[in-house]
């Protein structure tokens, strides 16, 4: 996938300009000359972390996909005679302040939580990376306009920007995704610009231009495969941040609809009943911690895997 030309496949070869392989660039030369700083024990710990993290993420994703089959109750159904009940046979993880089954809400909440995480990250990717790269390819004026706007967005704290947007356009899943996307778009844009500038200075890109490739053609076929690694890594970092931000927005009552079973909303709702129903807040908090830590572990592993510098170091260490 990413760095396709480095593996001797796809774009650069089809366009006939893969004669200057970026694998030979100065990064790799520098990496080859540097001592290996990643001991095997550390790598094994990292791999184990990624494995455990990946397993947890997979479990949560599976629960989200099969939620209607797993959830024993309708997550919205209220039993007003069984408020704030502890775990029991009828309610595996107890009930909340409206008599709703906490386990069912947790399982169904995984759907919304993951949807918001993935959706927010995708919106941020499109707004930041796609718009940013397109503007960069089109020249200085589009670059100045798009990155000027991104600088303005970046100047505001993310949560504040999301709050303002939600207040302006209303609550709900759609507005939340847009708010998250706008808030995190600059992260993708800056990574994309740095990678673009680096790659655009490479000879193979110049050669592609000389052979008559248009700006967008060069971008899509030659530059994009070389910047995707960094962007995917960035996605792995942004995704848990989107989940946490949605939790904050839900906690403030500005996220999804009031009865939507998101984990953030569950925390927010249960916070008033901390004394009489601690289980109702503890369970979604633990789930949130597990998911975000796991995503970070997986993201770290993906970054390590996609970073050519590390790959070269690892190869040298193995040798």
């Amino acid at each position: 996938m990413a760095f396709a030309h480095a593996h001797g496949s796809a774009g650069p070869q089809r366009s006939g300009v893969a004669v200057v392989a970026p694998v030979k660039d100065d990064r790799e030369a520098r990496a080859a000359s540097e001592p290996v700083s990643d001991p095997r024990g550390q790598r094994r710990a990292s791999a184990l972390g990624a494995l455990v993290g990946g397993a947890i993420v997979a479990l949560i994703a599976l629960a989200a996909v099969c939620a209607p089959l797993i959830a024993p109750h309708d997550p919205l159904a209220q039993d007003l005679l069984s408020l704030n009940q502890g775990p029991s046979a009828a309610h595996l993880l107890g009930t909340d302040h409206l008599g709703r089954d906490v386990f069912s809400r947790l399982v169904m909440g995984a759907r919304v939580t993951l949807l918001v995480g993935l959706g927010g990250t995708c919106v941020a990717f499109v707004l930041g990376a796609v718009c940013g790269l397109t503007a960069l390819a089109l020249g200085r004026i589009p670059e100045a306009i798009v990155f000027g706007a991104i600088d303005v967005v970046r100047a505001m704290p993310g949560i504040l920007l999301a709050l303002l947007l939600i207040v302006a356009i209303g609550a709900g899943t759609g507005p939340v995704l847009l708010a998250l996307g706008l808030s995190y778009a600059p992260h993708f844009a800056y990574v994309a610009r740095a990678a673009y500038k680096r790659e655009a200075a490479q000879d193979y890109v110049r050669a592609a231009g000389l052979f008559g490739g248009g700006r967008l053609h060069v971008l899509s076929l030659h530059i994009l495969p070389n910047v995707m690694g960094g962007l995917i890594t960035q996605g792995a970092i942004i995704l848990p941040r989107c989940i946490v931000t949605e939790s904050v927005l839900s906690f403030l009552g500005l996220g999804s609809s009031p009865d939507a079973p998101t984990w953030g909303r569950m925390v927010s709702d249960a916070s008033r009943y901390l004394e009489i129903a601690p289980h109702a807040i503890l369970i979604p908090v633990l789930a949130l911690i597990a998911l975000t830590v796991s995503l970070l572990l997986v993201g770290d592993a993906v970054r390590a895997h996609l970073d050519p510098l590390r790959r070269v170091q690892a190869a040298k260490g193995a040798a």
Partner: protein
Amino acid sequence: MKSPSLTLDRRQLMLGAATASLVAVMPVSLSAQEAASRGGVLRYATLGLDTSDPHRHTGSIAVQQLYVEALTSIGPDGRVEPFLAEGYEVSDDGLTYTFALRDGVTFHNGDPVTAEDVVANVERVRTNVKGGWLASAMKLVDGVNAPDDRTVVIAMKEPYAPLANLLSELWIVSPKSDGWNETITTPIGTGPFVFGEWKPQISLYAPAYKGYWRGDMPYLDAVEANLREDLDKSGAMRVGDLHIASVPRDEARQLAKSGDIHVSQLKDSTWYFVSFNNRKPRPPFDDPRVREAIMYAVDKQAFMNFLAGDDGVVTNQLVMPGHVYFDQGLHDADKHAKPDLEKAKAMLAEAGVKPEEITIEFLSWQENYPQVVVQMVRQLGFKVNHVALDDLGAQNRLGQYDWDMNAMASGPRADIFLRFVRLMSNGPNPVLWGGVQDPELDAIVEKAVAETDEAKRKALYLKAWDRVMDNYYTVVLGHAANTIAIREEVQGYEPGFTWSPNWATGGIAQTWLKQD
């Protein structure tokens, strides 16, 4: 007509009112004197303070009545009682109100309160203040004058029954107050405490006024009102950082278990209701049959149990049982006292409504109780898009009339008219009730307001409420009082009828702190 608490003869009226005031104040005063310790700062947190100008307030009255008082106040039973006036008289035609001012009342700058001062305050509200609760009353004032130093006469263009009650919120401030001609920045009132240092949204420090007119009150050195919206009142009450605070009912229950805090309630209720969009209703919610069917899905008893436990009262009226405007017959005939899902579904089918094809746009504040109503409505098969907003956001969205239903609440009021006025075509801030536009309803309420006989007035108000119920403009779910937590060291304080902390026969003036 005379006001209910007054005699026909003016001299007797003055004597009777003065005696009644003394009787009302003295027992508390004497009993308090026996055990009261003086001193201490009472820390208090209920609602906020939106302006330093008492005549321009649009928010709550929970703080400003520490330092300003009015000709009348609302007693714990909801009846109007003379306050800065010793008594008042209403002419038989209901057009002339004559107030006899109390002797010995001084402003915080030491000046005695004169009839001219009161006239100046009424004129200021009439001419300088636009909108607000007193707007409709002030439009009907023909003139106000002071025939002598102790008497104020307000002449009305037409009878207006709520006037005496509404005057409990026309606070008398010295015309020497800073900003009198524009916005008063430092109100010089007559209350037991002085407008001291105000930090908006943070606090008001109000030291005691030593020249206060009620015996040797106040007993406290000062009151510090905490105005922070993000304050954890329950936590502050537990550790003793607050002495008196309004807290949600579920938190109040927990506080009551702590042993050094007891919980009381405001004497008037907050009423909970469902309103439909009446200004721009979209089909099928413009059909009263559909509204009626939806309300058959709402279990009012379960709702009130959830909201207030045993303290909740299920009814179909604007006031609680026991209130002068409560009607037992109407209460007993409540069609929605019990839910009937089958009937609801049958009615919808009869009206040609397929609920599964309709999404109800449902608005509320960010509270728990609307979710209960939403879930009950979903039982009929409707999809519900529930949008929960903060106070300002809800106000804005409700005013756009692009919604179908809401579930809201409204707090204590000095007079029942202030509940009906929200249902009138030109009423202030009618959005919570869906912006009713009904000239016939307006006419009935206007007749009620102008009616000087209390029994006939009640009949007219009930007729107006019948019309509201028949058209399903708003459906009352029930009533519950606001809960107030009070630490045990606070003595001589019991919440009043409204949020006001000070009234003629009780309140914060007679409150003291038990010393360790």
